[in-house]
């Protein structure tokens, strides 16, 4: 088999894997639609469909929640993948550059100010998330230390710390019986409040962000190279980086403005994607998106079915994410030894 045939065979294998992942996601989504707490904890059987309550729960509660898990998982993973490639750093996630902390501060501020509007919470989270990104970028321009990427990393750490302490101040003055609990629950994340209205409120922008990132995925490999190299192959690295960062940030902040902070999805699933599909982002990017959807779907289904009360999804993604992370690193280590 010559190199071209080997490459074609590898591409075919990747397409098959991608199709298989899509199929698994579809099958699990369908299966999980019938998993819940009503009429009893476990699966809803066809014999239960005569109950009008079951139909309403399936269509008004479980279906929008599953779709939100798929959408949010895809967006967080796509953002994580983009950040990791742009910064050539596998430990980067959407929370990088202060985006998550900025969004959390924005949302907490609105909760404490007593707004009853979730739209305002969404807008505030998005504005402060973008503000954090801008602040990190501008700060990096002023730093006189290291290369461009290192400066951005350092400014991101500083901006994150500033928004973390600002969030601490907001929590300090929050009403303990209500606002503080809301902030805590929001920060833990969750899809318990998913509704058709919520999905529709972010669908157009998040879908647009996903489409843009998907269309630009081939550039990610080139942008992960040194600036001179990517410039030499006809890219405008500065412009493309800013564009992709802004798109990934908007998608992330909008998503977390309704789901709350959900950690690990954007960190772990790009790693899994690259593990399964290689470093070529043409396949590993969509692969990561599907894995993100799948990961969040599984975590959310556990969170809503295991106990009578909701388990905050952030706890589950952190727990499962950390286990997967350890496994990936252990496998890499063993491969290295071999």
């Amino acid at each position, binding site marked *: 088999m010559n190199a071209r045939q080997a490459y074609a065979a590898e591409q075919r294998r990747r397409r098959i894997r991608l199709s298989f992942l899509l199929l698994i996601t579809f099958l699990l989504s369908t299966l999980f639609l019938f998993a819940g707490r009503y009429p009893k904890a476990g699966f809803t059987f066809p014999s239960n469909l005569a109950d009008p*309550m079951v139909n309403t729960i399936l269509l*008004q509660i479980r279906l929008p929640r599953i779709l939100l898990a798929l959408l949010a998982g895809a967006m967080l993973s796509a953002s994580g993948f983009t950040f990791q490639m742009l910064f050539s750093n596998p430990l980067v996630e959407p929370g990088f550059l202060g985006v998550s902390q900025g969004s959390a501060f924005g949302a907490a501020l609105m909760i404490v100010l007593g707004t009853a*509007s979730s739209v305002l919470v969404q807008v505030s989270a998005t504005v402060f998330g973008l503000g954090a990104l801008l602040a990190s970028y501008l700060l990096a321009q002023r730093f006189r230390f290291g290369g461009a990427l290192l400066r951005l990393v350092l400014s991101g750490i500083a901006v994150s710390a500033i928004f973390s302490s600002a969030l601490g101040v907001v929590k300090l003055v929050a009403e303990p*019986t209500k606002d503080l609990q*809301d902030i805590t629950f929001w920060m833990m994340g969750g899809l318990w409040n998913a509704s058709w209205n919520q999905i529709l409120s972010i669908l157009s922008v998040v879908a647009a962000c996903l489409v843009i990132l998907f269309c630009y995925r081939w550039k990610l490999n080139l942008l992960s190279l040194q600036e001179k190299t990517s410039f030499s192959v006809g890219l405008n690295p500065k412009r493309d980086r800013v564009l992709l960062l802004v798109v990934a940030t908007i998608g992330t902040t909008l998503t977390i403005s309704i789901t709350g902070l959900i950690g690990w999805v954007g960190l772990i699933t790009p790693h899994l994607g690259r593990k399964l599909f290689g470093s070529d982002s043409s396949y590993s990017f969509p692969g990561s998106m599907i894995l993100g959807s799948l990961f969040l779907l599984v975590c959310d289904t556990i969170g809503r079915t295991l106990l009578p*009360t909701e388990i905050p999804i952030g706890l589950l993604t952190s727990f499962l994410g950390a286990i997967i992370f350890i496994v990936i690193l252990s496998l890499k280590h063993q491969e290295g030894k071999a």
Partner: protein
Amino acid sequence: MKKSSLLLLVLLLPALLFAQAAAESSMLNSDYYMATDANNRTLKLEKKPSHLLIAGKAGNMPANALFLFEEVQSMDLTLPKTDQGLGDFFAFIRPDLDQKPRISQTASAEEIASRNSDLVLMKATHFESTAKKLDQLGIPNYTMNLESYEDWKAELSELGKLLKNTSRAQQLIQLYETRVKFITDRVASLKPQDKKTVLLLQAERSDAAYAYKIAPDSWMQTWMVETVGAIPVWKGANKAANGWSTVSFEQIAAWNPDLVILLSYKDASDIYLKAVQTSELWSLLDAFKQGNVKASPHDMMNYIQPVASWVLGLQWLAKEAYPALFADVDMEYEVQRFYQEFYNIHDRAKLEVLLDLYRTSVASNTL
């Protein structure tokens, strides 16, 4: 010589007896201002506190207990924010409190010290963060728990000792006991199959989205449902011992309770009832079909929480769960009687304000 010695003895004897009596009286007085707080510390005050400060979050709970004693009328008070969102009951009954700036709920020990109070009251949860520091500064402080019926009885008794008014403390305890016994005596005859299943849900909203939460098993809300002879369907479900946990509508439907009570401590509960009344999902619940989804009662504080008026919440719950059994209970009369007996409010205008708030809070239950 003998005569003079005898005369001296006769003269000294009354003086000695007087000194002994004075010492005994002093000790008795000293004991009167001595009480044990929720953290098992014994506080000994030489004089009755006249400048009192309530520190920390949830300050409305110690304030609730304190205001049950008439001594509070002559005290110079510094309070934290005590309005949960439905009105400030303490400023309502003592309007001069509005003239004085409130102390921050997160005030430091130094800030509290700068107010020069004779005594600082706070929730027992602030023991580590505030009470210990105040001890280091030598500022008398006293913690209260007030999270259960037993806490209320024990801590009112201790507060009575601290304020040198044990008779009022005993009177208050008896008032609570009489009301609780009235309910427990009547529901004692209920057969297990006749017991209603009840679900208390704390409702929260954000725009058009609503969240419903259940209380931990150990909280007073769960005890209240059990005390009225009903079955709290959520018991055992909330694994978070220290707070409310969100439940999905699916789980509510799976529990399928006979009676659902919607609570809110920040908003009027009927807001949530109105949302439920227009919900396609909720209309499928049996409790909804039978008109048994209710907004919880409140005036300036919700009755279904560990504040002094919890006993009104208990009476209201009993009547809602078993209307036939408590047909003779007139809640408006009970609300009025509660404020007369517990808070010594006899001003008709003030009673009418509180009654109006109560009526409004439950008005949508009968629509």
